[in-house]
């Protein structure tokens, strides 16, 4: 079975620097034989987390909208790629909207304790963060990383790598960046090879039992 890669673009506008970088990653992954899907969050109709904590008492989220099936798709992906430009030192409100809605998974994992991912599961499921920032500061992505770490934790993905490019104001667009697109394509290929290899180990031929 081919490796399933799900890319989610959290940018409010289409085909900007971050989505272009995501596309390069997904093309690389597809070239390596993966089944690739892309979801554009701005096209979905959803509300952010309401902070009601109902998921702490009863399983699941009481809000049912277009994020509901997306969480199922996340659960069936081998590689989850989350993409957001940096706005005001953080991810966009759109991607944060998706991430905050993951609270019901947090509740399953840490309150109800009905959800747990084995070390092996996490090794076979890789999370990648793709981002661009106009600012040149080295710490421009620092506010985003812990959020991604927390979300990959509750969705069962090992936080495998980032594809990030800052100082985008200097390059004009991501196409002017000397290395970012090539790096994204290469990492897309690489993650599929790594997961493919692990999946190969997944179902060993039946031994003598």
């Amino acid at each position, binding site marked *: 079975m081919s490796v399933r890669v799900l890319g989610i673009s959290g*940018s*409010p*506008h289409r085909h*900007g620097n971050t989505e272009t970088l995501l596309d390069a990653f997904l093309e690389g992954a597809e070239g390596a034989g993966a089944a690739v899907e892309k979801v554009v969050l701005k096209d979905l109709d959803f509300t*952010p*987390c*309401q*902070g*009601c*904590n109902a998921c*702490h008492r009863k399983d699941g989220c009481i809000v049912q909208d277009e994020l509901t099936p997306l969480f199922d798709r996340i659960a069936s992906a081998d590689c989850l790629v989350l993409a957001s*430009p940096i*706005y*005001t*030192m*953080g*991810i*966009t*409100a*759109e991607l*944060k*909207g998706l*991430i*905050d809605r*993951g*609270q019901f998974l*947090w509740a399953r994992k840490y309150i109800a304790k009905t959800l747990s991912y084995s070390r092996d599961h996490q090794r076979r499921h890789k999370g990648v963060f793709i981002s661009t920032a106009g600012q040149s500061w080295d*710490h421009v992505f*620092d*506010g*985003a*990383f*812990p*959020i991604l*770490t*927390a*979300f990959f934790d509750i969705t069962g993905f090992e936080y495998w790598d980032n594809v990030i490019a800052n100082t985008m104001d200097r390059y004009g667009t991501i196409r002017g960046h000397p290395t970012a697109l090539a790096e994204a394509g290469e990492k897309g290929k690489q993650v599929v090879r790594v997961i493919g290899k692990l999946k190969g180990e997944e179902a060993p031929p039946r031994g003598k039992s």
Partner: protein
Amino acid sequence: MPIKVLAFATGPRRHGNSETLLDWVQASMGEEPGVEIEKFALSEIRVNPCRGCNACETLNRCVQRDDMDMLHDRIVEADCIVFATPIYCMGICSQGKALVDRAQVFRSRKYVLKLPVVPPERKGKRLGIFIAAAGQKMEYVFDGAILSVKCFFHVIEVKDRDIEYLLVRGVDAAGEVETHPTAREDARATGKRAVARLREMLASPGAG
């Protein structure tokens, strides 16, 4: 001239822990003479996320028409801006992040169009208060949120050194902040300190 305070409760849950902290700060400030406070709960008004269109870099205003229109002038006119948020998944809640990102119009005004965000004589005379409540107790649970909030305050002409922080860990369930050993007193002290600082700032001559 009264001291004008503009407060935002950005969490989706009304009267949750971060809004309660805000109310305590507000009550403490409101006891002082000559302090006018206006509070908005983002869940009761409409502030859409930034569309990232960069039109504000040329138009000097946002292309979206929503409640940010009425907040814009209030943000400019306030002496003190209070931003309260719950921490969700290691960051500002999505609703609060939308408000932060919509401050892009001020960033464009300041850095692209090189126009003043506030009149020159009011620079250095604005105070920010950042209030956050987190369910988790990790030392670094507020770090990501602080990075974004500093930027928000920066583009609306509140200097880093003029931000007061009220950060409370380990409160998650509704009303839990009421049982926190020091939160109420800390909130009260934050309010008093803020008013004292504002009086000093506003009394000082010229730009700070």
